[in-house]
């Protein structure tokens, strides 16, 4: 039930290349375009951020591993556009045949029921500044308090959808830590990524000693924190 994106703690990746301070923001011009197409498509309101993450991490492992960052984004947007019925497979295939049309040239226009929701240039700054807060009202009592010892569930897995989206990394499954911070209730990605509603749950920052997670921690006093929803946790 593991997914290729869940790579925390993995061995064999080699050094991190920190680049140079004056590196361009985008290594290729199309990276910027990919980011913008992704954000503008999302503004149509047919999927949420958890669904976007789910679509990216559901790419076949060979593609996930070989695609560059923005290739993953573009593939996920194409898949979501078809999944949510915004465009058809035939239209995507036709778009591929029309790739000689220069960027920005719209050619003939067809009325689409969602066209009224398209993000306009004059509304971009306000839409980005507004964001999408995910804190929600919660009428129950949070199960845990700051300072309390908790253990994460094992296996790390979506309990509603087999193989579905979840935000408990495998490296932290079954680990014991301590609640550092309570954030109130946040939208629950395991439900939200699959169209099962927001199902808000209390969210906690939990701190784990490195020795709880790794066989050979670099320093016994080092720690890792994770932001974890209540149903990922049980009392320790």
């Amino acid at each position: 039930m593991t997914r290729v994106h869940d790579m925390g703690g993995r061995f064999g990746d080699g050094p991190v290349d920190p680049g140079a301070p004056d590196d361009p923001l985008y290594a290729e011009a199309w990276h910027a375009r990919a980011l913008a197409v992704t954000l503008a498509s999302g503004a149509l309101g047919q999927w949420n951020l958890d669904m976007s993450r789910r679509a990216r991490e559901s790419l076949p492992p060979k593609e996930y591993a070989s695609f560059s960052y923005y290739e993953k984004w573009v593939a996920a947007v194409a898949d979501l556009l078809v999944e949510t019925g915004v465009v058809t497979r035939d239209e995507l295939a036709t778009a591929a045949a029309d790739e000689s049309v220069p960027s920005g040239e719209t050619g003939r226009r067809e009325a689409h029921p969602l066209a009224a929701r398209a993000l306009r240039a004059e509304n971009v700054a306000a839409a980005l500044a507004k964001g999408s807060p995910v804190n929600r009202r919660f009428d129950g009592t949070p199960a845990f308090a700051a300072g309390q010892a908790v253990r994460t569930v094992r296996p790390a897995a979506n309990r509603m959808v087999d193989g579905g989206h979840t935000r408990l990394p495998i490296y932290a499954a079954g680990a014991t830590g301590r609640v550092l911070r309570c954030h109130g209730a946040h939208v629950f990605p395991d439900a939200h990524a699959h169209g099962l509603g927001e199902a808000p749950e209390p969210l906690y920052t939990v701190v784990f000693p490195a020795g709880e997670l790794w066989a050979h921690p670099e320093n016994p006093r080092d720690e890792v924190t994770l932001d974890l929803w209540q149903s990922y946790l049980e009392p320790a």
Partner: protein
Amino acid sequence: MPHDHHDHDDPHALLPPDPALRVRALETLLARKGLIDPAALDEIIDIYQNRIGPRNGAQVVARAWADPAFREALLQDATPVVADLGFFGRQGEHVVAVENTEEVHNMVVCTLCSCYPWPLLGIPPAWYKSDAYRARAVREPRKVLADFGVALLEQTAVRVWDSSAEVRYLVIPRRPEGTGGMGVDELAKLVTRDSMIGTGLALEPGQ
């Protein structure tokens, strides 16, 4: 139990394999249907190129160094404090500031994707999104810091924040020595992007 169905005939495979052509095909299709406005794409790119970037976060850090009451409020509940400075929005709706000291060095990663505080730091650099950083930062942060040329004192503990939810973290680096008389604008010039992720230190004056 429902399964997360995976279609092996993925729609994205219908697009050209070359990524630049793939993006262009998608943009052309959506623009033709009136679903995206090419001018809106230009505006998105311009905002993250020219208006939202690490200078925002540097202002927050410099103020925290210069103003004890601001620092206190920031560490208590950063979201309204940075929002008051105009830093709020997509990928920065819930912000926590963590302060480096002689005892603890904070470092931020997102092992599951690449979550990053956009309104404060802009679009993440390539290394932040790399497999090597995502895989290694949690397990061997000191070796990763060495890749950045950063060495910590042995007695300094490392706390790595794996941002697995919508909380976004801003590291307040240690204030360099010899900056006592500096104002906020001068201090902000010492605050690098990497120092606010925890893979770098603030610059020394004159560095």
